């Protein structure tokens, strides 16, 4: 969290020497606070002040990246408790745990399942983000082999799970180029783990299940050892406690700027597949940066991907659908033609109501930059000209024989202009989308 000018001033030498080019230290502090000057301009600033000021420029929750290239996963850097205050930035990363005790075939099948787990939804690709390889065999060679085998079959970033530094080192030897996440350093092994994280330049999870005091101490030690990219794991706790701890950590870091816990949190889930699904839903809404699944059956992941997409939608930027001519209920050349905006909620509501009417129809979506019907109209982002242009672009006239178009009831006042511009007969539809089934049925019955 940024310091105020007064807080910065307290850290400066207060000599008013003017060597920085500004007459007084207070004026310099104000420039620093507004990011109009660099601290290096002051020749007399102390090392302590430097460190404090540099730290204050860091985000309250560290941004941690795992993996390399296109599949890199970013976690942390959140600033809010509630999405409406601004937005949540980095969607909870979902990962699948694969144990090194699996046979080659089982392992291949699991990796394949993870690789193929992706969907396109409202124009976005949603997918599994990481694979976690867990050392369960008690054999470091086997662990490294499993890591190698998984790596050869996936481009997803990896998490390496073992509390034995020598096991992690064996695995890092074959995987460090992909910048895996090391899970985990604890109170006993942290020095060796921190050295590995530093030498191989990989992010490191700090694991401590005794309490937040101890966890904060551990991250401090790891940081002093030279590791910056840290994640937190406070151990498996009952659901309610986990949710409360995640909330407390988010508050401490994002709102109180408490650095020792200013890191993204990774949570390991229950082995019961249904509990795992339900708990994941809670943690996706309430502050987990990453989740480690034991089972990624599609019945649970598809709804969870959807939830994650919903919650991490930027409230300031509405989700938009593609401005196209949509075919609903298999229309033919005589089916009615309607239009609406590309704001996803508007589109889904209208499309759903048309679907429920069971009447085959065409729905032309107009690019209104994600505004709803009335807002777009008021802002001049939904004009008769734009409707005509969209219809031309989508080739509606080739597909549809008749010369009618249904206008949303709210836009009734646009009727005459639209008729002029489009040369189409304009029928005024219902004011609310929910009136569409009745309206369309009436139209079909010739009423």
């Amino acid at each position, binding site marked *: 969290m940024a310091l105020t000018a007064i807080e910065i001033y307290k850290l400066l030498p207060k000599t008013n020497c003017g060597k920085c080019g500004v007459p007084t230290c207070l004026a310099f502090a104000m420039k620093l606070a507004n990011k109009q000057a660099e601290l290096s301009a002051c020749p007399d600033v102390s090392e302590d002040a430097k460190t404090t000021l540099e730290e204050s420029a860091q985000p309250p929750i560290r941004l941690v990246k795992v993996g390399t290239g296109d599949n890199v996963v970013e976690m942390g850097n959140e600033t809010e408790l509630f999405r409406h205050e601004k937005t949540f930035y980095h969607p909870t990363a979902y990962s699948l745990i694969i144990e090194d005790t699996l046979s080659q075939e089982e392992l291949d099948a699991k990796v394949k399942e993870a690789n193929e787990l992706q*969907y396109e939804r409202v124009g976005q690709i949603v997918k599994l983000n990481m694979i976690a390889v867990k050392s369960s065999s008690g054999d470091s060679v086997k662990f490294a082999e499993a890591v190698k085998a998984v790596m050869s079959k996936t481009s997803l970033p990896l998490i390496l799970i073992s509390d034995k530094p020598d096991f992690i080192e064996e695995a890092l030897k074959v995987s460090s180029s992909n910048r895996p996440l090391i899970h985990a350093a604890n109170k006993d092994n942290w020095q060796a783990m921190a050295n590995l994280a530093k030498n191989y330049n990989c992010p490191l999870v700090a694991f401590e299940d005794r309490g937040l*005091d101890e966890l904060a101490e551990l991250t401090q030690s790891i940081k002093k050892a030279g590791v910056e990219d840290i994640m937190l794991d406070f151990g498996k706790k009952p659901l309610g406690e986990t949710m409360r701890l995640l909330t407390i950590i988010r508050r401490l870091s994002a709102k109180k700027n408490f650095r020792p816990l200013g890191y993204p949190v990774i949570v390991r889930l229950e082995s019961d597949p249904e509990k795992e699904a339900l708990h994941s839903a*809670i943690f996706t809404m309430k502050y987990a940066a990453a989740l480690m699944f034991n089972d990624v059956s*599609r*019945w*649970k992941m598809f*709804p969870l991907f959807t939830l994650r997409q919903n919650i991490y939608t930027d409230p300031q930027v509405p989700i938009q659908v593609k401005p196209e001519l949509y075919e609903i209920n298999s229309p033919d050349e005589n089916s009615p033609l309607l239009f609406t905006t590309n704001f996803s909620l508007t589109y889904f509501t209208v499309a759903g109501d048309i679907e429920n009417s069971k009447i085959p129809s065409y729905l032309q979506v107009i690019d209104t930059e994600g505004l709803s019907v009335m807002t777009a109209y008021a802002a001049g982002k939904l004009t008769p000209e734009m409707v005509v242009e969209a219809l031309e672009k989508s080739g509606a006239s080739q597909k549809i024989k008749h010369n009618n178009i249904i206008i949303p009831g709210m836009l009734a006042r646009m009727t005459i202009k639209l008729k002029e511009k489009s040369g189409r007969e304009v029928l005024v539809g219902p004011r609310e989308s929910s009136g569409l089934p009745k309206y369309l049925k009436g139209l079909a019955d010739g009423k």
Partner: protein
Amino acid sequence: MGVQIPKEKWTGKIREFRFGATREEGGTRSKQIILGGVSTMPFLYFEGEMPHEPVIAMEVIDVVRKDYPQIAREPFEGVIESPTEWAKACVEQHGADAICLKLHSTNPEEENKSPEEAGALVKEMLKAVSVPLMIYGCGNVEKDAKVMQVCSDVAKGERCLLGTADEDSYKSISVASMANDHGLVGFSNLDINLAKQLNILLTDFGFKPENIVMDPLQAGLGYGLEYTHSVIERIRLAALMGDQMLQMPIVCDTTVAWNSREAKIENPEWGDEKLRGPFWEATTALSAITAGADMLIMRHPKAIKMVRDTAKELASNGGEK
């Protein structure tokens, strides 16, 4: 290190709606449910009270149409044609805290059942089950006004929740509700200001604030869920910060989740719909209760079990409960 747990000091508290009247109170319900009474954001027991777990009312519709999803129909095969038998199954087999009776058949565009027929069904329902009752109309303003009048009289003394009142239709339903000291569900369209506006209109009209429950419009998972989630959070935060015109309990109707194809159609890509469907509704419901909903109207028994179990887990280890 000495980590200081940051606690919010809220000044506001959610009003309590006493749902259902027992014999002592002049009704025939076996117990009364309290909605609200909350003084914290959900499940954060370290800084406030959440005296009750979320209440689950199960949906019973007086006429089940063809578009009712097969997966949700299956658990009630054999009873779904009879609203009272259906309601009994909800209470006896699935532990419904309350029943939400939706009088769809009164719709003038459809079966057009009379207010008296609806009233007779409410009377039967009150005999068939002893849990508190929500009574919802068909959504046609003029018809609902008449239906609610009759239903309110029939259920006199039972402290039901009548629904729903919106900005345009609140007067008739308020009158019906006030006449017999029932509660009322006020419906607003995903907007904290509209929710507050409706509460002001209702109280100015003479309706007691402690008898109002708010429905801020539940959107289903994948179809605007994030709007509902944030509107509930904003309403609840404003209430806890002291806005008395938003300190009403919140109810969310998560049966809306079943309107989406993703909840009910067979598609191997999306996984087993027998689990996916209930989880779709459960996720919608979990979004509501983590944001601040006090009561849910739900459909599928498996989704209900999922939500109830999860709510119990969220409430555990909570210190003073």
